[in-house]
């Protein structure tokens, strides 16, 4: 019995810690819009580097990069969401995220115009993505958070990088 109770408290503490980091979001920009991804899903952020193009792929899939011996695909989120394409500058970076694939975890690089900060956004501050009345669901969007009077679009990265998804982020225009 004793052991069990200790284990329970242990789990609670872990869950609390988990919840804490689950609330943390990395904020990055694509053009004028600001987006957020859960920090838990991010492996690392690297500077822009040479991308090897892969033939016959849609334009938003830029190609593959060598991440210390691993070959991972790189996606330009601006193109994927059909926003105005951005020039790559010194601020441009690749956010390497860990997502679910058909054969276990896979790593994908997402090109962003720049990362700004890590924000703790409590579940209560997240609103459902609004209905724009055009009948299209917004599957990539987990919700919208308002921080200091600005709107951050929180992405569900597993949806964004689902191999079979071809839908655009339809509310962008």
């Amino acid at each position, binding site marked *: 019995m004793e052991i069990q109770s200790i284990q329970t408290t242990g789990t609670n503490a872990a869950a609390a810690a988990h919840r804490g980091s689950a609330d943390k979001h990395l904020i990055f920009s694509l053009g004028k819009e600001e987006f957020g991804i859960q920090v838990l899903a991010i492996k690392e952020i690297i500077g822009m580097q040479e991308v*090897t*193009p*892969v033939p016959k792929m849609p334009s938003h899939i830029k190609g593959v990069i*060598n991440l210390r011996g691993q070959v991972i695909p790189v996606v330009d989120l601006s193109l994927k969401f059909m926003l105005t394409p951005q020039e790559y500058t010194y601020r441009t970076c690749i956010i390497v995220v860990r997502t679910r*694939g058909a054969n276990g975890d896979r790593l994908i690089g997402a090109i962003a115009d720049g990362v700004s900060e890590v924000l703790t956004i409590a579940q209560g501050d997240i609103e459902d993505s609004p209905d724009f009345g055009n009948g299209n669901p917004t599957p990539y969007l987990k919700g919208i958070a308002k921080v200091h009077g600005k709107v951050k679009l929180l992405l569900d990265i597993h949806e964004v990088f689902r191999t079979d998804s071809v839908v655009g982020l339809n509310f962008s225009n």
Partner: protein
Amino acid sequence: MLQAVDDLALQVMLKGAAAFRSKAMASILEVARKTSPADFVVEMERLVKLAKAKTLTDEDARNGASALQAILAPPPAPPVPEPAAPVPFEEDAELLNDFVLEAEEHLTSIEERILQLEKDPSLTEAIHAVFRSFHSIKGLAGFLGLDGVQAVAHEVETLLDHARNARVSVDSAIVDLVLEAAEYLKDEVAAVQARLSGSLPPVIRNNVSLLASVRSVNEEVQSGRRAVATAAAAEAATVVAVVAPVAEPVAPVVDTAVTTADVSESSFHEEEEVVAFTLDQEEEDQAAATAIAAQPAVPVEVVKAAPAPVAVVAAPKAVPAPAPSQQEPMRVEVASTSVRVETSKLDRLMDMVGEMVIAQSILMNLSRASANVETRMAGELAQLARITTEVQRCAMSMRMMPIGPLFQKNAKMVRDLSRRNGKKVNLELAGESTELDKTIAEELADPLLHMIRNALDHGIEPPQERLAVGKSEMATLKISAEHEAGQIVVSISDDGRGLNPDKIRNKALERGLIDENQHLSEQEIFHLIFAPGFSTAEKITDISGRGVGMDVVRQHVEHLRGRILIESELGKGTTFYIHLPLTLAIIEGLVIVVGDHRYIIPLFSVREMCRPTEDMLFTVQGQDEMILMRGSLLPLVRLHRRFYIEPKSETITDGLLVVCEFAGKRFCLFVDDLLGRQEVVIKSLDEAFKSVRGLAGSAILGDGRIGLILDVAGIFSQNGFEGLAA
């Protein structure tokens, strides 16, 4: 229950009080509450509680274990499997996983050893090995509550115990029984594995008849040669008697054991175990006693007598936990010196080593480029280069495994099939220690099986036919493996009928595989047997003749980037040579350029290269292009058109032609230029790219950049004939 307690007692011997903290305790207790006397449960609970609180000394634990054994002592004949501990699967997934792995290893070794035994029944070491394997499986299964496994393993173990003590000789009937039991255990293990992975477990056949037949053999042995058995018991008693006067405190226990041995009718083996245990304990007391008493004559004899049974019986039991070796001298021999590592970890290691090699070569180039590098620096860099090469070689070799086990799997099949077909076959294996990549070994299993079946069914004649043509009745099937020029060559050779080129040619004509005036070399004719649906067999047997097998062989070997050569002489026999790459992880490739893009063409699919001249190019109906090269017309494929990329030039004379081959087809690939030839580590591409035809993977080139590896077949058949066929 007794079994579990015996196991527990052994664990206590080896690990001390810690044994009572193991996970299995809960399940033992649970069963004990239902089936065992109350005092047993009380004692057990006390010990577990103490152990959990870590206040239990090793000494107490040992005494406790003996007490537990004593409570259950007069053993109810155990062959009836008790309602074993129902271990919930989800909780003990790890334990079960270990069980599956370990059992598989044991089963492989059982098959191997038992077949050795059949050839040479005097190999006592092989009997011991098989016995140990069954015993380990039984012990593990007992812990995990796998009744069926335990019951079968137990019976076979009893049988082997008779064999081991020369009460019965290992004839083919016994070999059959043991193999059948191993087969059954294999099914059980597969079922456990299926349940673990969440898939539907296969139906397991009933073990009742198997159990009954093993049991009946056991009873025959026991009743038929009772005298021998009692003699052995008496011998055991003598040993004990010698000990008794010296180590008095233990004597009562010994007495019980001996009485049990005399009284009990059923399983001789179990008693011996009890004796062995007590002996082991005595041995310790004995050692203490000797130190003081200094009576050399008696102890020496005891020490000589005692270790043997203890070692043999105790060793397999110790498998669940790594044991201190001085207690069991035999254990050292059994223990394998390998470590199981996940393949993903190895792959990761390979990745990092690859990166290290690249970093090192960049460093090397830098130092060469700059003018004022100290000599010392250059020396150290050279040293680093040597080390990296060695590390890379080591990392590669970790994926390698000997081909032996693969051959062994087939040895059993050869035996079964030849017997069923009434053919006499002597199987010779060679080069079993040849190492090859694990993935290749796994993929090779199927083709090897089909080729052996084929040899047995079609190649080797029945004994009468062999005698009629003046061959010896006993046919020889030889399977060997060797390294040859950076490749593995596996050959399957029989001294049977041999291939008849005329017959194959006629059959191929009949099936429309070739046409009348096609001129074919002998090798090409032989290769017709790999065509799907091709079979020269007049009748279809349950083994082969449907023309599927050889097609499977071809597909697998091609998939492994290997090739097959056939040598055959009519009436003398056939030899198949399967040439395979050493590893799938590395290929040699040509690095080529088209526009800004670099690609790698695997060297095994490249036949030749040339700079074309204007007059080599012909167009067909204004769109398809052909190249006339030394009299043969080859279709031309421009890589940039297939991949929709910008080339440096469209003019044929500005570029380069690479003649590629796949599945016997040749075509020319037009590229801008050739950069060089390089060995590259293959890395699979992300699932996002699985829709792209013509890419086989990617690789990191010497400068750290990525090159995409081309799949020649995919490039050729894009929007080509494959599209029409589908």
